């Protein structure tokens, strides 16, 4: 993509900017769609209709929300630490946006096709914690502070099982590159790692149950990392009002919102790359069978997005079904259950990949 763009424009810097801006073209419509979807999904799960009045079945709802948030007054109360207060939403957004740089939307479009993709993602998503802590601290509000503290503790803890699962996958596949991972799971759905990967033979059968466990561990801890129910403690409405963004209004709040939904897709996308073939189609490409080669990347983007959105949907489903755990239970779950399981899983997958 980058090469193609630099050929097209004849300027590497311009090409870099364009390819960096492309995920925005995905995130913003996605968030608009996802917020609407969340409201519709929750409504239909609760015998309601959800937004109905703006556009067909309220599909313009989020756009209206967006325009409204733009024109809202931006309150910066006199007690806040202004520098950090203003910086925090952008930092959080940068954290979740930077992840998109390494997401392989198709084999011809990756923002930055680095070999250490997975490593990079784990690293930059740490920025989100810094942003949230900053927001909570700078707000000078006790609820915000509690939300931020909880969030930091939660995200830092849950990064460990996530990283352990990713480590297991890296050991098994021998690559840290997300593009390479997706390429390995090509041609059909039984080559996905959730079904034991592309290598046929007894090792596939042996590793299959552990891959399932690995996926569950990954998905649970990724839920906690993006602060979704049942782990939505940082913004637990019934306890902490609105958590770390209690004091934010208008566009700054919208930035938090944007990055929350952006994060939801990012972790779903990583799950789909690790276990569900990433951008690979489960049933082959129409473009290939028709002989139209330019269609293939678009199909890949379609599959990538729909896999991601499916997992986002599952996140919503869980949110509107389950109650919320308590802060000590959250930690218990992480340190006493997920991490030991992830370790055992890591060892077993390691042994299988050795022999």
């Amino acid at each position, binding site marked *: 993509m980058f090469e193609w763009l630099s050929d097209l424009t004849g300027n590497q810097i311009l090409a870099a900017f364009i390819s960096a801006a492309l995920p925005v073209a995905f995130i913003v419509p996605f968030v608009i769609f996802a917020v609407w979807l969340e409201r519709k999904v929750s409504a239909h*799960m*609760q015998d309601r209709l959800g937004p109905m009045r703006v556009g067909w079945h309220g599909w313009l709802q989020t756009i209206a929300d967006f325009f409204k948030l733009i024109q809202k007054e931006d309150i910066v109360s006199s007690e806040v630490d202004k520098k950090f207060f203003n910086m925090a939403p952008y930092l959080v957004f940068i954290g979740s946006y930077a992840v998109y740089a390494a997401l392989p939307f198709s084999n011809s479009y990756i923002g930055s096709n680095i070999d250490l993709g997975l490593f990079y993602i784990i690293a930059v998503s740490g920025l989100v914690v810094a942003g949230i802590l900053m927001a909570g601290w700078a707000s000078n509000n006790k609820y915000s502070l509690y939300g931020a503290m909880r969030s930091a503790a939660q995200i830092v803890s849950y990064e460990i099982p996530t990283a352990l699962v990713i480590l297991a996958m890296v050991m098994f596949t021998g690559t840290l590159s997300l593009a390479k991972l997706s390429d390995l799971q090509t041609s059909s759905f039984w080559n996905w790692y959730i079904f034991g990967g592309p290598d046929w033979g007894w090792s596939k059968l042996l590793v299959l149950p552990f891959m399932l466990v690995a996926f569950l561990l990954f998905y649970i801890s990724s839920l906690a990392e993006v602060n979704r129910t049942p782990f939505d403690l940082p913004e637990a409405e*019934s306890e902490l009002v609105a958590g770390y963004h209690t004091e934010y209004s208008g566009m700054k709040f919208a930035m938090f919102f944007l990055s929350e939904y952006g994060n939801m897709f990012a972790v779903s996308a990583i799950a789909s790359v690790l276990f569900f073939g990433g951008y690979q189609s489960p049933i082959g490409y129409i473009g290939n069978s028709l002989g139209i080669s330019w269609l293939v990347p678009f199909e890949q983007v379609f599959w990538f997005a729909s896999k991601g959105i499916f997992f986002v949907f599952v996140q919503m489903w869980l949110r*509107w079904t389950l109650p*919320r*755990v*308590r802060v000590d239970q959250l930690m218990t779950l992480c340190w006493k259950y997920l991490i030991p399981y992830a370790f055992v899983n890591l060892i077993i997958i390691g042994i299988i990949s050795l022999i």
Partner: protein
Amino acid sequence: MALKTEELVLNMGPQHPSTHGVLRLELELEGEVVKNVKPHLGYLHRCFEKHAEAMTYPQVIPYTDRMDYLASMYNNFGYVVAVEKLLGIQVPERVEYIRVIMGELQRIASHLVALGTYGLDIGAFTPFLYCFIDREKILNLFEITCGARLLYNYMWVGGLSHDIHPDFVRLTKEFIPYFRPRIKELNDLLTFNKIFIERTANIGVLPVDTAINYGASGPVLRGSGFRWDLRKNDPYSIYDRFDFDIPVGQGLVGTVGDCWDRYYVRVQEMEQSLRIIEQAIDNIPDGDVQSAIPKRIKPPKGMVYSRVENPKGELGYFIISDGSTSPFRVKVRAPSFVNLSVLGEMSKGHLVADVVAILGSIDIVLGEVDR
């Protein structure tokens, strides 16, 4: 310089999503552990007792509606029972039956709100809406009877404001088989949910003797395992004619008297209320519901303390009459007010999130706490 820790005082409310209205709690925290809880009341103090002194006896009834606005029927019930005792009048059988049916329907409606909002406190949003769907059905029954959805002014001293609608019996009979499976659905969705149990079991354990000493009543007292229900222990109206059980907390998933027990007592009580309605609905005798209403309500000099089992607990009316047409003094023993005073005792040493769970399990209505 030595590090020192400071206690953090956290204000919850009066505007807070889970204080069930305008209660303010002052939490003294050490980390997230609660050292002390100080409730501040009065944000909804609407001077009921002053109004009662200024109004005539029938005029007080609409104000009783507005105390526990989730169980208005039962507030009416308690008040008219007290005044009837003072006047010494007997009400017709038909009125008694209709009162009991309305009271039990109201109990279900009130418990539905309590259970739904409790789910909300724990973080589950959907059960709340499911409960409201069912509550809406009960409100429809009230609406065809007296035209109001929330505040009914239905029970009058000596009778009722309206006779029941011709369709009421049929619709109520349809409601019972509709509602039984819904209780089961609620159990599947929330009651026996693993996370819900983890959040509520062994939290806010209230021993029986403490509960009695604090004057707790209703599901809070029964949750502690004490079989105590005024409908059985101090029967009023015609409750002694019906066959029903008093569910008590048994510590099914934790300790007896924890939040889950109080919650589950309410779930079981809805079932018992259905049983009472089933027994009563077929036996409503004919008659005029307004025949016993006195022309002029002017009780003799005297006083009465009369209590009924409101969905929240023991609702007592202490009425002093000086022989005129308006009460000399009305004091309401509001169950929520008394139950809420246990909060501090129960929440010491728990986390902030548990305070929310404990408060929700007490099921307070601020209109009644502050009156």
